[in-house]
């Protein structure tokens, strides 16, 4: 049972210089086991800064972070263990690949945990399977793969450490729609199978609406909304004012409602929308 708690976390870049910048302001969060969370915000809203706090890469300028009830910045806290429990996949993770072949690269994480060779290789194999990479690529140089494949390898590199909380910083940035859907589907599947907690960072509501059960919206270093998708999307006007948008379905449902069709505007996915519109049309005396 692992949970993360952020208590009044503030973070300031370049403190004490003319470039001083408050990237996080009074962040309070509780992340429970098994949740599937979307962390959304405009460019520069502090998403990447926030997720780097979750595994102790950045230490808050003020405030505390607790993992399973222990303050992660206590001097006797084992940071290495934390990093194996909270797996963080960076933005453009393919830039961190370095080994001669895909398989060795994925082995890097578990090897650092001090596991024996057999366990390391078993985990690497399982992780590569989890991200849906087929065997033929295992012994190729990671630099010869396509962008989407590299990204999978990088995600596998973190999965192989068997984290309890998986944080993905914009895992779909720079991928085509198909590559994007494949990776997101794979992550959703992984979560169903293993019950792992997933935090998905994105700046597109559309991407996450289909998957997550909770959305945290960041704006200028602060948390603006933290709720179930339905509730968050109902504030679509406010989302627009901070450079975000609700999924298109929300707009369609709102427009239909306005033009007199009695539909439920809380719908978040296209599939639900279809049933809802059909239902409303049937009810309508024509």
């Amino acid at each position: 049972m692992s949970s993360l708690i952020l208590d009044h976390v503030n973070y300031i870049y370049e403190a004490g210089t003319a470039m001083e910048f408050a990237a996080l302001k009074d962040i309070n969060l509780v992340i429970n086991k098994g949740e599937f969370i979307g962390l959304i915000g405009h460019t520069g809203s502090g998403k990447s800064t926030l997720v780097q706090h979750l595994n102790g890469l950045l230490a808050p300028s003020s405030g505390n972070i607790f993992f399973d009830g222990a303050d992660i910045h206590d001097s006797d806290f084992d940071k290495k263990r934390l990093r194996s429990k909270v797996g963080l996949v960076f933005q453009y993770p393919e830039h961190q690949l370095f080994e001669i072949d895909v398989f060795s690269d994925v082995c890097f994480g578990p090897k650092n945990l001090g596991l024996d060779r057999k366990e390391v290789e078993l985990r690497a194999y399982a992780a590569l399977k989890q991200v849906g990479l087929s065997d033929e690529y295992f012994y190729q140089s990671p630099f010869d793969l396509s962008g989407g494949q590299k990204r999978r390898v990088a995600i596998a590199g973190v999965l192989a450490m068997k984290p309890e909380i998986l944080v993905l910083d914009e895992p779909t940035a720079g991928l085509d729609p198909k590559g994007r859907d494949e990776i997101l589907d794979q992550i959703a599947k992984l979560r169903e199978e293993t019950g792992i907690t997933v935090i998905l960072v994105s700046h597109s509501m559309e991407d996450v609406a289909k998957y997550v059960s909770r959305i945290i919206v960041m704006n200028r270093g602060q948390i603006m909304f933290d709720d179930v998708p339905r509730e968050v999307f109902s504030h679509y006007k406010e989302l627009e004012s901070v450079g975000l948008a609700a999924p298109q379905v929300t707009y369609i449902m709102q427009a239909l409602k306005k033009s007199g069709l009695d539909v439920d505007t809380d719908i978040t996915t296209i599939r639900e929308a279809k049933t809802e519109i059909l239902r409303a049309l049937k009810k309508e005396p024509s």
Partner: protein
Amino acid sequence: MLRDITLGQYYQTDSVIHRLDPRVKLTATICYIISLFIVDNVIGYIIAGLFLAMIIKLSRVPVKFMIRGMKAILFLLIIAVIFNLFLTPGEVLFSFWKLQITKEGIRLAGFMAIRLVFLIMGSSVMTLTTTPNNLTDGMEKLLGPLKRIRVPVHEISMMMSIALRFIPILLEETDKIMKAQIARGADFESGNLIKKAKSLVPLLVPLFISAFRRANDLAMAMEARCYRGGEHRTKMKPLIYQKRDRLAYGALAGYLVLCVILGKILL
């Protein structure tokens, strides 16, 4: 930790020093360094120190930044001091075992330390207050006459400006890759020398790849904009001396005269 390297890093703010023509700053830095080697008495160093303090104050760069830059040369500094302290012949003050400290040694070591500190600080002021682009523009213009004897001045300054421009980018990249590998359980701090060197592989390989990728992209972008070297290129913002630049040259001349008279001849 990587951000401690301030040499070659620009500190963004607005000050008189920032607005000076880069040629003035380059000339002044060179003159200042020369002056450090001309003077050889306490008064001379006091003048040099005051001059530097005044410039730093005017530049509005926090002193903390200068001090941070000093950390990088601490080792060099210690060695220089130790060598001068023990290896200068003269009137012996203390001696133990085979080593002896002389009066001249103390004096020389002290001067050497002050020289080094002032030298690094002086050149840091220049790089902290001048953007790399400006700096190389100034250098290109100052070295312009060398073109007549076929020195590729423009190419050299272009290479320098690119190199300087890339320092912060590569530092940032290093920071990012380091974090990504630490997130995968990498350990860059503990272990013996061999283990430490080995642990750098996951950092260096991606770093080199990214540096080559960037170099490639940059070359392509320059080519796409028809860059073809220095001939017939004009500047969007040509360097023109202003009143403040002339004043600065005046102040510099005054400083040099003072140094020579008080720091060398008089005492």
